[in-house]
């Protein structure tokens, strides 16, 4: 499984989001690749899920990749909820 964390530059808030996602994956015992990307290149990278903010999510939706929007990227509970909801579908 590959998860892409996306922000404007691909190394600021997406990095924090990646760390939050990895922490949750670890506590759940799930192995997955989590990478960061900037908004411009995100749509050309293969992934199972894209995690990003609401604005970028609106623009990245519509492709084959399931896009998940997160408001507070440092909030473990919010990201955990979002991850659980996509993993269960």
């Amino acid at each position: 499984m590959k998860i892409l964390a996306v922000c404007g530059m691909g190394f600021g808030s997406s990095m924090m989001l990646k760390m939050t996602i990895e922490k949750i994956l670890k506590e759940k015992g799930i192995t997955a690749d989590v990478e960061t990307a900037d908004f411009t290149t995100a749509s050309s990278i293969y992934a199972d899920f894209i995690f990003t903010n609401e604005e970028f999510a609106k623009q990245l939706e519509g492709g084959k990749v399931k896009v998940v929007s997160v408001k507070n990227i440092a909030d473990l509970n919010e990201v955990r909820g979002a991850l659980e909801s996509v993993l269960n579908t």
Partner: protein
Amino acid sequence: MAFFEFLMNEILSIPAVLVGLMVFIGLVAQRAATTKVMSGTLKSIIGFLILGAGAGVIVGSLDSLGGIIDEAFHIQGVIPNNEAIVAIAQQMFGTETALIMGFGFIANILFARFTPWKYIFLTGHHTFFMAALLSAVLGTTGMDGATLVIVGSLLLGFFMVAMPALGQPFMRQVTGNDDIAIGHFGTFGYIAAGFIGKWFGNKSKSTEDIVISEKWSFLKDSLITTALTMIAIFIILAVLAGSDVVSNFSGDQNYIMFSIMQGIMFAAGLSIILLGVRMILNEIVPAFKGIADKLVPGAKPALDIPIVFPYAPTAVMIGFLFSFAGGLISMALLGVLSLPLIIPGLVPHFFTGAGAGVFGNATGGRIGAAAGGFVNGVLISFLPAFLLPVLGELGFANTTFGDSDFGVIGIIIGYIASLFN
């Protein structure tokens, strides 16, 4: 002894290897799997070399830009862009920057552990940029060797806790809690916006009651907006300078077509540099956070500015537009005053202008967001103009550090250091 000399002269003198070594230590300290240690270390070294390649591309475009402005108007033209200046700086201060960044992380952990400022600064690219700024400013004052690295690392670690601490009273108003801090070296601009909003604005008239059309959201794609503005800047300059001046740079190519391609070239160089920065930081920041979490109980993460954007998306657009307007007006003033012409760069204005908008809105509603963004735009135009002299040789690169703290800190340290010489 021969081995030690080989280590110092051949291995540790290569900045890319030094960065790789830091990542290696970080991953080993985290007890990462051997394959991860190998791939992470190698990736960071490749990333550092990519940075140099991107610098080459962007310098080509910047040399034409600076050259045209110089020949046509006889002033220095500078377009602030952190990524570009840091990539260029690596050719002069690569080793110092890598060492200051590494020891700066440690200094941050120590300051957070032993002072009331419990902030862990997780915006890795800004740590990297500040390390480069400190290397350049301290290096220009004549400091070198171990002294430069020790002073630079302590200063870096200090700013990594002090800036989030300064921003925190306003961050609490933005987020409504005390859980996260702002970890971005545009803090002076955000604080200024916060005060402006408080003094002149009205918190109850929030920007978030205004609806902005969806069609403007493409502006958040920073690579595209950078390409578009650079094309516009090049074309305007080319028309003002005339085809005779431009032909000194474009050769036989049509001067308008040349301008368009140079604008796109700048964006291409920026994209390469972004990839390099990403590959350097991908392992280093998580390793730093992992170690900091263990050593600093009750630490608060200080995060990159987009963390505040979801709290007021309309203020983001208003702050950005007014910051850019502030930049344009300031550019005209700088021209009149015969100071270096600071051309508003999209990346700094977008990220810090948006941040100032959100902070201004939190304390003073729509007036706060607009006025705060504008003041930020003026700050990040005038500060770089006065920063250039303290950067020494790096001050002639046609690009420079964009965000407010780089300007304030660079200027203060540069002038204090010059008092001792």
